[in-house]
């Protein structure tokens, strides 16, 4: 293997795949990046066995070949090289990196030991606006559960029926649902569960991604095609809980208030909440929301209120303040809406209006008040 490429190009390529290289791994070869030189392109691959990335760039190839190199060390070295062309040569199991005046050698592992990547069939690929997908991911990913005993909740449900793409995430206490119409992703009518890790990487990578990305679902994998970079992730086995069933359709009470005022209120009052339960009590009255919290450990308590537009009987209800804050941050309009019926069932939090083709809402379960 031998090729020449500019330092800047090489650096951007390495940095892209480095994200996937596991910090620690029982399988030593996974700490490595696989380099492949073929015809007129260099490819780099990395995987942690859950997510795999392949990225490629044009280069001046002298000899074809492949080898793996320790990812972090290689990346550090490339980043520090002076500007100019770099010549990479594979000699036995070592790689030689030649800059204008320097020569570095790093021992690698044979490419045979690297996990094989699946062949991807792009015939069913759909193109989707990058910002749309990113927006949907960021509105749902925060609700993903961390409870490993409930694997299905450890990912985001993606489902596409009749041109409506839905993403849902829940940790059993809060739930986020985002919908976008006018999209036609094939093969996920029944829904698949995508682990968040790959989606996080995607959100990072997509900073300089093309306006549209390609999506393919194939054989238990989701493939994201960002032109020169392909991100593959395994999917999580279902079944996903029946989320439609828990979204209340009718409400007897509706509160409309200023989102930022509400955020500030909850932040202030929750400083004095129990620091494990984060319990905060909200009283929805005719013209105001009153928030209260008590922390017996420090002998502290707080009470404050903001104005609100409310329809319904007065209601007292407890919540985990952190969940409220997290959800409220994703409400996009200045006014937020909160709808509910009783103090023991899910409340729906929503923005006052939605952009065309898009819809979303959040659920939060109460933290029943201690008596």
């Amino acid at each position, binding site marked *: 293997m031998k090729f020449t490429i500019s330092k800047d190009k090489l650096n951007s390529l390495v940095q892209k795949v480095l*994200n996937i290289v596991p*910090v*620690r791994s*029982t*399988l030593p*070869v996974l700490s490595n990046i696989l380099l492949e030189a073929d015809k007129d392109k260099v490819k780099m691959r990395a995987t942690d*066995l*859950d997510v795999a990335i392949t990225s490629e760039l044009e280069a001046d190839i002298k000899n074809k070949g492949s080898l793996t190199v320790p990812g*972090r060390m290689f*990346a550090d070295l490339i980043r520090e090289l002076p500007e100019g062309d770099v010549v990479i040569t594979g000699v036995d199991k070592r790689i030689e990196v030649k800059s204008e005046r320097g020569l570095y050698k790093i021992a690698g592992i044979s490419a*045979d030991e*690297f*996990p*094989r*990547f*699946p062949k991807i069939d792009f015939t069913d690929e759909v193109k989707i606006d990058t910002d749309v997908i990113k927006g949907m991911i960021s509105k749902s*990913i*925060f*609700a*993903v559960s*961390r*409870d*490993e*005993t409930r694997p299905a909740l*450890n990912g985001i449900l993606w489902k596409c029926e009749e041109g409506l793409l839905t993403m849902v995430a*829940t940790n*059993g*206490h809060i*739930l986020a649902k985002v919908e976008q119409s006018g999209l036609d992703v094939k093969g996920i009518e029944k829904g698949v569960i995508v682990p*968040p890790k790959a989606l*996080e990487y995607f*959100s*990072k990578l997509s900073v300089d991604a093309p306006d549209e990305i390609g999506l393919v679902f194939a*054989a*238990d994998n989701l493939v994201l095609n960002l032109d020169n970079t392909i991100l593959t992730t*395994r999917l*999580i*086995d279902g079944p996903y*809980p029946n989320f439609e069933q*828990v979204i209340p359709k009718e409400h007897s009470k509706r509160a409309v208030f200023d989102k930022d005022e509400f955020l500030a209120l909850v932040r202030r009052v929750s*400083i004095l909440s129990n*620091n*494990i*339960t984060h*319990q905060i009590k909200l009283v929805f009255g005719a013209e105001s929301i009153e928030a209260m919290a008590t922390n017996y*450990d*420090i002998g502290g308590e707080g009470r404050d209120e903001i104005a609100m537009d409310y329809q319904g009987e007065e209601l007292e209800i407890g919540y*985990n303040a*952190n*969940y409220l804050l*997290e959800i409220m941050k994703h409400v996009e309009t200045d006014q937020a809406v909160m709808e509910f019926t009783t103090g*023991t069932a*899910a409340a729906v939090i929503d923005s006052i209006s939605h952009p065309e083709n898009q819809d979303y809402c959040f659920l939060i*379960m*109460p*933290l*029943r*008040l*201690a*008596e």
Partner: protein
Amino acid sequence: MHFSTGDKPKIKVLDETLINKIAAGEVIERPASVVKELVENALDAGAENISIELEEGGLRLIAIHDDGVGMLGEDLELAFTRHATSKLAKADDLFNILSFGFRGEALPSIASVAHVKAISRVKERDSGSEIEIDGGRVKGLKATGCPVGTSIIVSNLFYNTPARRKFLKSPRSELSRITDLVTSYAVGNFDVGFKISHNGRELYNFPPAAKLYERIIAIYGTDDIEKFLPLPGTDEGMFNQPGSILGYITHPVMAKSRSNETRFFVNFRPIMSRTLLAALRAGYHDKLAPNLYPPTAIFFNILPRDIDVNVHPAKTEIRFKNESELFPKLKRLVEHALKSGGVLTELSLNTDEAKPSGNGTQFIHAKRGNDFSKRTDMQESLYKGGFKEYGESSETAPSRESDIEKDGVDIHSGIEKPHESTEQRMWQFMDSFIVVPLKNSMLFIDQHNAHERILFEAAMENLDSGKGATQQMLFPISIDLTPGEFAIWNEYSEVLNRLGFETSEFGGHSILISGIPAEMDDKAPESALRRILDDFQEGGEFKDDPFKSIAASFACHAAIKAGQKLQYEEMEQIFNKLFACQEFNLCPHGRPIIARLTSQEVEKKFNRHVPIRD
């Protein structure tokens, strides 16, 4: 002199009823022992269906009906005579025992400490016979009409041995011993139907099953069935083949705090064995916490001459001739089942097996258990004993985690930080300890013990003064309880409610969890609840103080575990809460929470004997 030297002989041969009473002390300890002996007799008689009626935990009544071969009138009388058995013809047979009984001791022993009525009929006769024994003495034999088979009715157990009666636990806890025991026999003899009722209420009814699998479903329900992992060859089910080891183990998430469902059978006889338990554990590697026991049903078929069952009066222990061969055999089978079930990977088994295979690992097939990433993390941090990445970030190469945090896409911080202090004050070590450097010492806080203490104090308060806060759930969880657990739940649901659990009856022996205490670690609340019920069943740790027992049990099972990765905020919360506790040095069971490494101790390791500065 107080001694009389009268003309009566002082030494006499113990009369038979007395001998029986003494022997009964060994065999018949409690109601469950009576049930055990009678069930074994019914199984020995070839019964296809056994039904058991109980009252007051068996203390008032134990009645067992079977449809086995039955007894003739004269045999019925003999059966209650000591050392009368149809099962051992000559001494040689002691080394070839295939039946459960062989001593001819059980019936006379039972009859010496209770009122017993026995009714039996063989199929060759049109009518049966009935006999009553009171305090060991036969009161009469008469003909009676009855179906083929045998009924033994034992009432007022230990009426004549008040001391024995005193040692018994509450009827509830005696009942749960009986249901445990019968369930074991029902697993071991899945082709036989078992029915059991208590105070007129049917507890369970297992119809005869063709396959072990069906019996397991009958007992555990279908919810958890995919967590039962078969040992190789179990599906074909040659349970009668000498040398076979077949059955099911379970995914580690099923593990319980008591070993009563970790069942081993040798020739269909439930037995206990430290060796087998150790082999089972070895097979789970690091997937099983040392204080937990996975439910299992493992059947060993061993030639009678290769075992000795005559070691323990209750026959619950057994001696193997080839114990040293059995250990690695069982361990391998368990590993195999866990691998097929996706719990163990080749990687996690052994460091030298962990070398990559030459032809590369297929990515697309890499469909493992979902706890893969967590497992590798944990292993590595344990083996290398290194600090977690929090402390590791080197100046030159920012680690992936810190990158993500900078970009603000760290999904798992999910929760907003309580205050935006940028400086890190504590780290996690081995995923089990929170390390906090102070001015002149370094604190190691055991995360589990600490959280346990916090929860314990919160629970004590909630039990005392009303009710804890409940985080309600969008997706309530239903769990199938065993009859014993269900009875306990029924009795304690009010207490659970005070702790902050929200549970309700859900048909049969199932309950629905719709809310959990807000303080508890919300991972797998159903297993925590189960373990709490198991502890209640045992009667609790602090005999004098039931609230304390409940709070301790709740704290123990609801606390975060060792080996669990913590977010920075979680560490801070534990730290702050711990020092707000009344007692922060010891967990409710008396184990230490904090260890301290002083600067002098560290300096000493470097042979530096610097005077203490301030």
